[in-house]
Every structure is written in structure tokens, then in C-alpha cells.
């Protein structure tokens, strides 16, 4: 019998890895660094001799970038990208592949092998410029957004179109408010594509849904939109949903030399949102000089025949149009488009409509009032409250002057202020 070692023990695996240009390191099952080759030292700038036997932990900053993630210690392979030390976001990054060494029963992890590659800045990538064909695509797309999209026979539509024309003629910020589904972004696109900034891009961001870090990355991250003057108009849908620091940062970008024009859309006015503390004041004081209210669809029922003729070919059945006019459209345009989708590109017939709309026609419904009828006392109190508040504001809080404006005795005005609980404490008459 020969005492020669088996081929496995003869293999000089340490020198094998030492000669490799791939950075390899090994953690033992006790989570201590057991081996790292010279390529690892060159890539990381760390000394293996210094960290040999060091236990890896999240709070040990020198080794945390190469710490295996928990699923690796649970027995799964993982590939991660981490920013190299001294760089919070990279580049350079470290791409690390972790392979756990499983025991016989596949539950115990004997150790972890790591393979590290350094990913540097992508400066060597070839330039990929936007070709001229994309400009043609953008031009075709922009051509759809004319003022006719907003205009219609109804008075409110004409008002909306004329306000949009006025907004498109200048470059100041615009605040658009209206119920969900009324087409606030469409109005913003119409303004942009007919404005002096139309050569630059329209960027619409849904602030209410996306995580702030995604929006921040798109705007201010590496290669973000804020780095170049490519954005002509920034449309923020529900900016009140953003964290206030990000609100302020976006405003700072919009106010910079090459910043975009800001158009915001929400269900209410900027003033209300600022007063409720959900929006930084500059949105109202500096970025809402033009305020446009997009009317709900139930306010522009006279436009329905025109809208249907734009969206569907052929002549719609008069009964179908009558049924559409009899509905109050709580979902606005979005709901109308859903309803018209049932026609599947055919001329609209009554039987295309959902039951809830058809039934209103059968029972001869007129448009249902969306709001409850206000009570007389409520109406009178509301009017009185607003008139008194306006008179007090005009007179600078002087009760006698306000009473004169309103044409009542001072004592009566004082009683009404107390009864209506206006302004907290009852004002004194000393100022008169």
C-alpha cells in the first residue's frame, strides 16, 4: 500500500486562488473571514492579514460591504450590488456573488464563498443619442393635443379652452384643479404642447403613487432629468403627496435657470393645501399665478354629442345620447371612456350602455342632482358668515366700520359674530 496522499489533498487550492485575477473570499460557518486572495486585496484595498478571522457584522463598517445577506446564511445563493466604501451610491459598485457551502443535511451552512467584481463608472459606454426619428414620434404625439380637446358647445368648456390658451401663451406656473378623471393632465399637455416650451419634453409624475425615492432618482439621481435642460414642463399630479423636502427640492429646480415650467394638478386649490399644511407655501405664493378649474363631466353635458362623435365613428343613436345626458358621471371622463369602450369602435347604440345608464332613460330621469339640496337656514348662515368675514377683513377688524359696510348696527353685528363663532374671541369695539 502506498502512503501517497489522495489527489484531493495534493491539490494546492490556496495557490490556485492566489494566482487568480478574480477576487475570491471565504467566510467560515462562524461568519469569520477565513480566506481572501490577493486579487480581493487589490479590488477592495483591504488587507487580508488585517481582517483574517474578523467576524463580519453589519455594524463593522470595514467589512459590511462584503457581508453575505441573510438569505445566504439561510442557504440560498445571492447576487448583490453594493456601493464601494467612500461612495454612498456608487460608482464604483461591488457586484458580489455569494455561494453558501451546505452541509450534508443541507440545513447547516458550513461557510460562504464570495466572488467580487468591481463595476466602475460607465464612462466608456458608447453614446446612444436620441435619433431624429424619435423627434417625429414626439411631434405626431404632440399634434393630438390641440385646444379643441378642451373646447365644446358648453360654456364651461369654452371657458376652460380660453384659460388654457392664456396659459399656453406665457411660461408661468399653472395650478389645475378638478375632480378625479376630469382630464387635468390632458389640459396640462394641451398647455405644454402649444406653449413656447413645446420643443422640450413634457414629464408627468404621479406623486401620489410612486415612492419618493423613485421620483427623486428619476429627477435628481445619477443621469437624472434635473441635470440637463431637456424638460420643458414638469407636471406634478397631486404634489401634496410628496414629502415636503422633496417638494422644496423640486421647486428649487423649477426656479433654476434651465428649470422646467411647473404645472400641478390636484383635486383642490393650492391655497387650501398650503393652509392645511400639506404643501410648502411657495406652491401657492410663487407657483399658482394661473389657476384653472377643470369642470366635471356633469357640468358639460352639452358637450357629450361632440365627445362621442370624436371618439366613435358614425352617428350615435339619439336615445343613447339622451341616456348619456341623463347620467351624472361620478367618474367623469374616465367613466365615459369605459362606457364608450363597450361600443368597440361601432356607432354608439343604446344597448351598448350599461344598465344603470339605460334605466335612467326608461324612467325618464333628468340629470340626477349630485349634491343634496341645502337647507334654507344653512344657506343663510353661510352667506351671513362669509359677508361678515369679508367686511371684517376689509375694515381691518374694526367692528364699527364693518357694521357700517354691512348696513347694520354694531351691536347686532357683535351678536351675530358671537352666534356664528367667527374669529374665536368676540372682537372688542374699542378700536372704533
Amino acid at each position: 500500500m502506498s502512503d501517497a496522499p489522495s489527489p484531493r489533498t495534493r491539490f494546492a487550492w490556496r495557490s490556485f486562488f492566489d494566482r487568480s485575477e478574480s477576487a475570491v473570499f471565504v467566510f467560515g460557518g462562524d461568519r469569520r473571514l477565513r480566506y481572501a486572495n490577493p486579487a480581493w486585496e487589490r479590488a477592495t484595498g483591504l488587507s487580508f492579514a488585517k481582517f483574517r478571522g474578523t467576524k463580519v457584522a453589519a455594524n463593522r463598517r470595514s467589512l459590511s460591504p462584503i457581508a453575505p445577506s441573510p438569505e445566504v446564511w439561510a442557504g440560498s445563493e445571492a447576487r448583490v450590488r453594493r456601493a464601494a466604501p467612500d461612495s454612498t451610491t456608487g460608482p464604483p459598485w461591488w457586484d458580489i456573488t455569494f455561494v453558501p457551502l451546505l452541509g450534508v443535511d443541507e440545513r447547516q451552512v458550513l461557510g460562504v464563498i464570495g466572488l467580487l467584481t468591481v463595476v466602475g463608472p460607465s464612462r466608456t459606454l458608447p453614446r446612444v443619442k436620441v435619433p431624429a426619428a424619435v423627434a417625429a414620434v414626439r411631434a405626431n404625439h404632440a399634434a393630438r393635443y390641440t385646444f379643441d380637446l378642451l373646447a365644446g358647445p358648453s360654456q364651461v368648456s369654452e371657458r376652460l379652452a380660453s384659460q388654457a390658451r392664456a396659459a399656453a401663451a406665457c411660461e408661468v406656473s399653472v395650478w389645475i384643479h378638478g375632480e378625479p378623471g376630469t382630464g387635468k393632465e390632458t389640459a396640462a399637455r394641451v398647455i405644454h404642447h402649444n406653449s413656447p416650451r413645446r420643443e422640450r419634453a413634457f414629464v408627468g409624475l404621479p406623486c401620489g403613487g410612486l415612492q419618493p425615492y423613485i421620483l427623486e432618482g428619476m429627477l435628481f439621481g445619477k443621469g437624472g432629468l434635473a441635470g440637463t435642460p431637456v424638460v420643458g414642463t414638469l407636471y406634478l399630479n397631486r404634489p401634496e403627496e410628496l414629502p415636503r423636502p422633496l417638494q422644496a427640492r423640486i421647486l428649487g429646480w423649477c426656479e433654476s435657470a434651465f428649470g422646467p415650467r411647473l404645472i400641478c394638478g390636484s383635486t383642490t386649490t393650492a391655497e387650501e393645501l398650503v393652509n392645511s399644511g400639506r404643501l410648502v407655501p411657495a406652491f401657492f405664493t410663487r407657483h399658482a399665478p394661473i389657476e384653472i378649474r377643470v369642470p366635471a363631466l356633469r357640468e358639460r353635458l352639452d358637450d357629450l354629442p361632440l365627445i362621442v362623435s370624436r371618439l366613435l365613428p358614425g352617428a350615435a343613436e339619439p336615445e343613447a345620447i339622451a341616456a348619456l345626458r341623463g347620467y351624472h358621471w361620478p367618474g367623469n371622463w374616465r367613466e365615459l371612456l369605459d362606457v364608450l369602450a363597450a361600443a368597440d369602435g361601432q356607432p354608439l347604440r343604446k344597448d351598448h350602455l350599461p344598465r344603470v345608464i339605460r334605466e335612467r332613460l326608461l324612467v325618464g330621469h333628468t340629470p340626477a342632482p349630485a349634491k343634496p339640496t341645502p337647507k334654507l337656514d344653512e344657506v343663510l348662515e353661510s352667506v351671513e358668515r362669509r359677508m361678515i368675514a369679508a367686511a371684517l377683513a376689509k375694515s381691518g377688524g374694526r367692528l364699527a366700520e364693518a357694521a357700517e359696510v354691512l348696513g347694520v348696527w354694531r351691536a347686532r353685528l357683535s351678536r351675530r359674530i358671537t352666534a356664528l363663532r367667527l374669529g374665536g374671541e368676540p372682537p372688542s369695539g374699542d378700536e372704533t
Partner: protein
Amino acid sequence: MKHPHVVLCAFDDWLAAQLREIVAERRWVLREFRQPAAWVDAAARRQPCVAILQADFTDAAANPLGVVADLHARNADAAVVVVSDVKLNDDDRPPWAAAAADVGARVVLFPPLTRPVLEDAVSGLMGVVAGDTAPRSEPTIDLAAGAFEDRV
């Protein structure tokens, strides 16, 4: 059908694999396509939809932005996520991202792309498109607003 859909057009299965877990967890419907035209047809249906397009910006023949513009013209309510398949220079990203947004994309993602980012983007947009779209109207009294303030 009003069930939330994730409609995906990708070159391979990698993106779908990244999304399968969240799709199952949220009970959305995931539909995969290889052909952009079929993807546009599926995403243009009136349903809550996040449409994801994997795009190779270097391939002029594929015209990914034309596809996005086509979808936006047919269904502006579909939330479109464009995932670039190629790494771009920091200088090249903004023009492409802005051009994609201009024709209707909501989010443009560039490599390196991680699963949490993709999941957050899709779930955030799904919250917007499948959220409560009914107006939050309150019974307010708006009597001649601004009329008597002018008089007093």
C-alpha cells in the same frame, strides 16, 4: 374586466420572474408578450393596468417610443413603465427618459435594475390606476362664490 393587470412586453423571462412574487401576493393578473403590437392591444383595454415595456434604445428598427406613444394615444390611463435593456451614459439617460415621458411613459428605469425598485414602481403605479377614482365630493354650499365679497 376591472381586475388589475400587469401587461409586460420583454425579450426574455427575467422581468416576469422579478414580478411573479408581487403579482401573486397582490392577486393581479400578469400577461406576458413578446410582440409590442400585441402588448399595446392588451394594455389599451379599459382596465386598471400597469404596462411594462422592455426597450432597447439602440435598436432603431424596434422604435420603442413609437410603441409607447401608440399606447398612450389609445389608453392614456395605462401607466407605462419603460425598462431600458441597455446601459446608457449618464449624459444620454435624460434625453431618452424625457422623450419616453413626453410620449406617455410614467417611469423610465435603467440598469442596474433591482427587484425592489421594480416592485415599488409597479405597485405604486397600480395604486394610482386601480385606486378609488370616484370623486370625493362633500356637500358644500357654494353660493355665488366671490360675488358678495366684491360688493362689500
